[in-house]
């Protein structure tokens, strides 16, 4: 589910842009696996862990980070030649803070419940190391269009992990996905399995796992995702 969401956006960007060569495509696909901001670069863990109990807030968070990351990269890349080295940190922070304030006000106006659920974590996008890290590592040395793509790629890599973790935690912790009941004993299902004749309920024996709702579960889930990713992509294994 998370993967398709990511791929759909990917395809949309690709088809709309004729300037899209192999190198540019790598800018978007690399952060999805080989150079994932969360599982490989260890960036942006902070604001990621706390919002992943439910899928919907995580999705909003992912979109917000893609937006902030892409436009911060673009702006800083445009400014990179004209900005003095001594004040670059403050300039970068002001650009990020401006974009995050825009996101915060838009959410407050259009989706107040999600805004309340995310609370301080929207503000904390400013201190999301992905944004600052990509500005320092990429946007300061590259042209605007490439930086913009790098921002989108890293935002999606982060968002993908965020949504996968949120899906696992919501399904096993609450028996729901994006608010719709999937498994467990209660009767409000997305698909009425009883009248369809598939038996009483889908995994009706399943009792919600309270551990998954705790913030600590996000760490276990990401730890296990790293384990899976590295046993399959062995060049990422930490030798030291």
């Amino acid at each position: 589910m998370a993967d398709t969401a990511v791929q759909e956006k990917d395809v949309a960007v690709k088809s709309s842009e004729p300037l899209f060569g192999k190198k540019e495509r790598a800018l978007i696909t690399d952060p999805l696996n080989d150079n994932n901001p969360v599982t490989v670069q260890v960036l942006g863990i902070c604001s990621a862990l706390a919002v992943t109990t439910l899928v919907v807030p995580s999705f909003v968070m992912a979109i917000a980070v893609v937006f902030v990351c892409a436009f911060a990269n673009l702006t800083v890349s445009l400014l990179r030649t004209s900005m003095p080295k001594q004040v670059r940190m403050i300039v970068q922070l002001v650009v990020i803070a401006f974009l995050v304030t825009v996101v915060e006000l838009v959410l407050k106006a259009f989706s107040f419940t999600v805004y309340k659920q995310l609370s301080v974590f929207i503000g904390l996008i400013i201190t999301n190391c992905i944004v600052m890290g990509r500005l320092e590592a990429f946007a300061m040395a590259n042209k605007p269009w490439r930086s913009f793509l790098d921002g989108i790629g890293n935002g999606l890599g982060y968002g993908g992990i965020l949504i996968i973790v949120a899906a696992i935690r919501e399904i096993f912790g609450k028996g729901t996905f994006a608010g719709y009941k999937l498994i467990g004993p209660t009767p409000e299902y997305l698909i009425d399995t009883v009248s369809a004749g598939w038996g009483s309920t889908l995994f009706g024996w399943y009792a919600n796992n309270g551990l998954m709702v705790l913030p600590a579960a996000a760490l276990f889930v990401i730890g296990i995702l790293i384990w899976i990713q590295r046993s399959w992509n062995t060049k990422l294994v930490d030798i030291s």
Partner: protein
Amino acid sequence: MELVNIFIKAAFIENMVLAYFLGMCSYLAVSKTVKTAVGLGAAVIFVLAITMPINWVIYTFLLEPSTNVLSGIVGTEMDLTFLRLILFIAVIAAMVQLVEMIIEKFSPALYTSLGIFLPLITVNCAILGGSLFMVSREYAFGESVAFGIGSGFGFFLAIVAIAAIREKLRYSAVPPALRGLGIAFILTGLMGIAFMSLMGIDPAALMAGK
């Protein structure tokens, strides 16, 4: 007594790292040896203890609608709270710059071992998070100082603890794909669960001897 409560609550019960999972990036990246962890922890305590009261003053006198100076001059209430992110982060960036200069002058060895993670304290979520929590919990000035020192101490405790565990782990047979980052994540989760057992504790009731 109230201030001691806030300190204990911030350091243990509502630990920034292990209960809210803020400041994770530097927590996971700098926790390979105890020595650098102590240095970073001390720097974070300092930055939190300084920025929290400064941000309290900025928030109360420049931003909060009912108390800010501009409202006093204009006569009607001016809501400037939307500027808080930009002002808070500017204060934090300035303080981190100060800490960097102090460490460079008095302990060049620590300065080189912390490397890039010293400027990255600026984007340590625990610090901005602390200021935002202070606003949303409506702390008074003294309380904000206690909260700043307490949450800094909590970060220090957490990062030193995981660094010590990771030093020992070097001699254990961890599956290759899980080595390093993966096991650090799982360990942090386990520590978080351990810290959760403190959650039901009410320091005020403890001190009253109940």
